[in-house]
């Protein structure tokens, strides 16, 4: 296992900040922080990270994800890549990481990506790569870094939304906005419920995450994590339920962009 030499590993035995009581507060779990209505709303921000081409920040309930985009830039020259087909399109690389303090359930997360994070990165890559016009950028590389600051449920779908926002902010050409939603179902239950960002979902549920491109009416990606054997019709029922939240997220993301894009023309020169 490669050592991460750049990190200070002295904090491995530190205490969890959530266990620290604030003056005047009872040690309440984080899920009581936001009201019920706010749990289902997205809050978007962009251009937060300096020195990146584009960045986005999305809060969904208590889940917070920050994405930054670097590139397009020179491709990595490797002996293994062949010069022909590889270089006719840009390469998209996704790095996905939970912050050490992010997880509500798992306690402190290691600095090195573990298997869930690698799987999430690969899902993001498979989902976002088809939505970008990579053939317009030959011989380039685009890097997308996702950092989950707090994971209170629905974290992968929020990461998809955030990554889409960062890519749009970077000015990369896309076919459509990609938005995602997650439904989950505890073991033994029959109904799929929309997963919200308040940490109320227990670890042992099956979940289906669907990423959808609304204007094209195409599915960009789907991830099924099954805690029990699932029938195909159950999975398709879950997808059907995911569609409406995806569309609503698309509308709110689109509205957010329409509201903040006019101010971009500050870069329009005077006279």
């Amino acid at each position, binding site marked *: 296992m490669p050592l991460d030499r750049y990190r200070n590993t002295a904090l491995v035995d530190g205490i969890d900040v959530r266990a620290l009581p604030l003056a005047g507060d009872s040690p309440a779990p984080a899920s009581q922080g936001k009201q019920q209505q706010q749990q289902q709303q997205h809050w978007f921000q962009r251009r937060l990270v300096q020195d990146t081409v584009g960045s986005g920040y999305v809060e969904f309930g208590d889940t917070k994800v920050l994405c930054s985009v670097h590139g397009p830039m020179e491709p990595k020259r490797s002996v293994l890549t062949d010069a022909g087909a590889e270089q006719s399109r840009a390469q998209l690389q996704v790095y996905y990481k939970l912050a050490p303090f992010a997880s509500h359930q798992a306690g402190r997360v290691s600095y090195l990506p573990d298997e869930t994070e690698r799987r999430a990165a690969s899902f993001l890559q498979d989902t976002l790569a088809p939505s970008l016009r990579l053939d317009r950028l030959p011989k380039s590389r685009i890097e997308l870094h996702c950092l989950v600051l707090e994971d209170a449920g629905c974290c992968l779908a929020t990461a998809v939304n955030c990554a889409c926002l960062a890519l749009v902010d970077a000015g990369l050409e896309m076919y459509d906005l990609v938005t995602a939603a997650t439904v989950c179902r505890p073991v033994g239950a029959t109904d799929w419920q929309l997963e919200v960002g308040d940490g109320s979902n227990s670890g042992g549920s099956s979940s289906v995450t669907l990423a959808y491109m609304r204007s094209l009416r195409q599915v960009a990606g789907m991830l099924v994590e099954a805690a029990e054997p699932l029938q195909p019709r159950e999975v398709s029922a879950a997808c059907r339920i995911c569609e409406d939240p995806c569309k609503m997220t698309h509308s709110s993301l689109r509205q957010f962009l329409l509201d903040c894009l006019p101010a971009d*023309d500050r870069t329009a*020169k005077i006279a």
Partner: protein
Amino acid sequence: KKHLTMQSAPDDEELDSLSIRLVGLDENYPVRLNWNDLGVQFSKQSIVVPGDRLTRSREFIPGHGTLRRTVEAGSGNASFAAGRRQKQNDDNAEDNDEDDEDEDEEGAWELAASVAGRQHVVNKLLCVLPGRSRYAGEIGDVVVGRVQEVASRRWRIDANARLQATLHLSGVLLPGEDLRRKSEEDERAMRAVLAEGDLVSAEVQSVQADGSLVLHTRNARYGRLGQGTLVRVPPALIKRSKTHFHSLPCGVTLVLGMNGYCWCGPTPGQSDVREPLASPADRSEVARVRACVRLLAVNHVPLYDTSVMQAYEVARESPVALLSRPDEQLRVARLVAEQLLTAEVGEAQPGGGGFGLHSGDLISGGALSAVH
């Protein structure tokens, strides 16, 4: 003992637990110049987002930021979308008044936006210009770049573009030469001209098919840049002008590269082969100019010689260290912006209002028309 420092949320009835606050989102913390306060309104017309339908009319030529897609009249992509096609059309695009066009034919296509930005129409060309994008480069642009690699008969230069730019050995003006072929000796002496890490000002000679730039310095103005500082700003802020080399009265030379790399340095004396080390007084002037360029860039004020000189005048008396504080940057940028706006109002264009989006190649100001 607390290992992490976090800003705890302010007293707010909605957020009474620990929450992570990102610096800069607090309304009381002035970070950027707000142009709305200065009376500038940005119109919300014709702003599009990737995936929006622009037009179905065949008379438009697709430009940058648009793509053609076929209208899928009969095909359903996923089985669960079968029942929802009826409701799809009314939430799809901005202008719905194009539904009176002819019905979907077989093979009908439409133009859609692929970037987020403002759409422009010039005659029949329809394009979408994003607020900021990578510097692409045009023939004749003055750029500032840093040498990354010395390869065989060429230098590879980072010019803030997608790919590295190339400066050929035949594209530099060597001292004491007329038009002669470069010999073996010249090739070995390339590092004496430009080594890795050097800054160079050059002009774009051509743009290759894959988008990489070919530069040249065949003019006495261009060449290696000596002592000074590089400031990196968004390329869209650099206003295209007749000359990009400015000798400011305070003894500082400012080179505003169109790729967003700006260089400030002490104005070199006449025909000094080896420049002497700049004095501390010169260096603080360079630092002041650099701080002015930086604060204008952070507040999204366009960069050209007038705006930088006005910022310098305002900031002349402040200590240079003060100019890196955001509130001081905001104050200076605001003054400069106000002066620039009053200067422009004096020469307002007919049809008034708004700012012409100067893309440098397509539009030359004026009102933007919506697409129909």
